[in-house]
């Protein structure tokens, strides 16, 4: 028995030598924000991954319970910095659902324009992040530079480049400035030319292909069950998009495709996003063409006295990272009883990431995280 115990201890010691714990984050250039992934590695292969969060909690949801229905907007846009508009739109729509407030048709079109511009802007950042995680830095300099043209449009329309607080219950805050439509179309023409350059630099690059193909594979049959959403799900060959499946605003009146790709790896997800950029440009052109004239806002009462009926509502939006949703509950007062935010990263960044990383190489962690769109502020609100 004693010999057996000694033998067991020797084996354990050897195992211990083999496995090393690596802490990726919370401050690491390869991580997508303020979170940490604790990796147990043997050689350079990951045997266990654990996501650690808690570095970023700002109690937004608690704070919103102390504010009136309108004051929440200054907090909502900060849930995820690269793409704040879907969160604003979800909240505004949830409030409208609960109250039964009508939104003018023009405002719906303007909202779609905002959402698609935000999608493009966010994809420009993704181009940089995904390539940067593989050591290809030129792409990020190009795309983040081009993103500024979209931010210029935001600035002209809303007054803010990153945070807009432009979509609010009943419509949007202001109408298009003079000549804005032409500027949008010119920017779209420019971006359409640029995405061809992006293809040459990124998708025709042998390094990018080799580093992304067959890495971070999500099995197609498990994807929906695991809570995979957005471009990541479409990268598994499943056609799923809230804009089509559960249409909101005026997406059912617009003509666009939902691109999918087979494989479930980083490469497939990148192919989906590549096509989605083109689809967004197509949608924006249609919005400019079809937008009706008329009101852009159905005024709300005095916000300090504005009460919503007792009940709850849940509105979902298709964002770049996937499904974004806002649940609100009202007790009939001037302030929310509860606001709860649902982001794609809540699933992608924890249970999915922990699952996917097992068996992968340490060098690929950052690329996998970028391809899943993990955004830590969505996990800790």
């Amino acid at each position, binding site marked *: 028995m004693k010999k057996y115990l000694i033998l067991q201890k020797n084996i354990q010691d050897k195992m211990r030598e083999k496995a090393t714990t690596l802490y990726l984050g919370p401050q690491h250039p390869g991580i997508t924000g303020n979170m940490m992934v604790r990796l147990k590695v043997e050689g350079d292969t990951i045997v266990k991954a654990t996501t650690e969060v*808690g570095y970023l909690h700002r*109690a937004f949801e608690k704070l919103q319970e102390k504010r009136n229905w309108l004051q929440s907007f200054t907090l909502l846009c900060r849930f995820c910095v690269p793409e704040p508009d879907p969160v604003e739109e979800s909240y505004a729509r949830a409030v409208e659902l609960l109250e039964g407030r009508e939104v003018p048709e023009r405002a719906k079109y303007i909202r779609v324009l905002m959402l698609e511009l935000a999608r493009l802007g966010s994809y420009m950042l993704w181009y940089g992040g995904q390539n940067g995680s593989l050591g290809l830095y030129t792409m990020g300099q190009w795309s983040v530079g081009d993103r500024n043209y979209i931010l210029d449009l935001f600035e002209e329309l809303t007054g803010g480049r990153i945070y807009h607080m432009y979509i609010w219950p009943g419509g949007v805050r202001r109408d298009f400035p003079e000549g804005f439509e032409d500027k949008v179309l010119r920017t779209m023409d420019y971006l359409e030319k640029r995405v061809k350059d992006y293809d040459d630099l990124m998708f025709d690059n042998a390094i990018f292909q080799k580093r992304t193909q067959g890495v971070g594979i999500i099995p197609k049959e498990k994807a929906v069950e695991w*809570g995979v959403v957005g471009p990541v799900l479409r990268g598994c060959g499943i056609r799923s998009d809230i804009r089509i499946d*559960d249409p909101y605003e005026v997406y059912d009146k617009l003509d666009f495709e939902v691109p999918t790709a087979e494989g479930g790896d980083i490469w497939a997800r990148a192919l989906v996003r590549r096509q989605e950029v083109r689809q967004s440009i197509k949608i924006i052109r249609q919005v400019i063409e079809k937008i009706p004239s008329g009101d852009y806002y159905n005024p709300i009462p005095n916000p300090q006295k504005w009460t919503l009926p007792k009940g*709850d509502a849940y509105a*979902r939006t298709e964002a770049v990272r996937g499904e974004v*949703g806002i649940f609100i509950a009202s007790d009939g007062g001037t302030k929310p*009883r509860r606001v709860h935010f*649902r982001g794609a990263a809540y699933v992608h960044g924890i249970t999915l990431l922990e699952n996917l990383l097992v068996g992968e190489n340490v060098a690929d962690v950052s690329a996998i995280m970028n391809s899943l769109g993990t955004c830590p502020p969505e996990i800790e609100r």
Partner: protein
Amino acid sequence: MDELKTKIIERIKANFQDATENNSFNYNRLDFNVNKTTVPSILFYLKDEMGFKHLSHITCVDWLEEGELELIFIVWSPVDKIKVFVRTRLDRENPVMDNIDMIWRQAHTYEREFREMFGIQFTGLEAPQDFLLEDWDGPPPMRRDFHTEEYASETFFERPGREDAGDVREEIIKRSGEEIPDFAKKYSR
């Protein structure tokens, strides 16, 4: 859509006697109220038998005045394009609920958060205690009777010199007896 909704209601009511429905929504949403013991089985049934494969959201609302916590599970059917809300109420004093992470793995994260933020105990949940909070000994912070400002003023001390909205530089001069440098004078109020 209405036909589909009626069919779903009939199937659920035939299998779960305690389920009461609310079909007042004029869009693709259905609501069911159930006892907390029925939750795992109804969710399992919705997922495996009725195609509600996607767990869209789980949320918790504190109804302080009624002494209850409400747990709401929102599931989505990619085939029928309908979302179903499954609601249950827990006693606020002793909120205990069955763990459902064997149905959807991602429910694990929600459960960890609700354990910490609302104090709900999920039986069978195997996870480390700390999720978002570290070394927390106060009451569950997302409950309505937790007052953030009160907790902060009781737990943390005010930095000396910041009791009023006075100029911090003047306070430093007062305490240290040092002169304010010339270059900083023009910024002083």
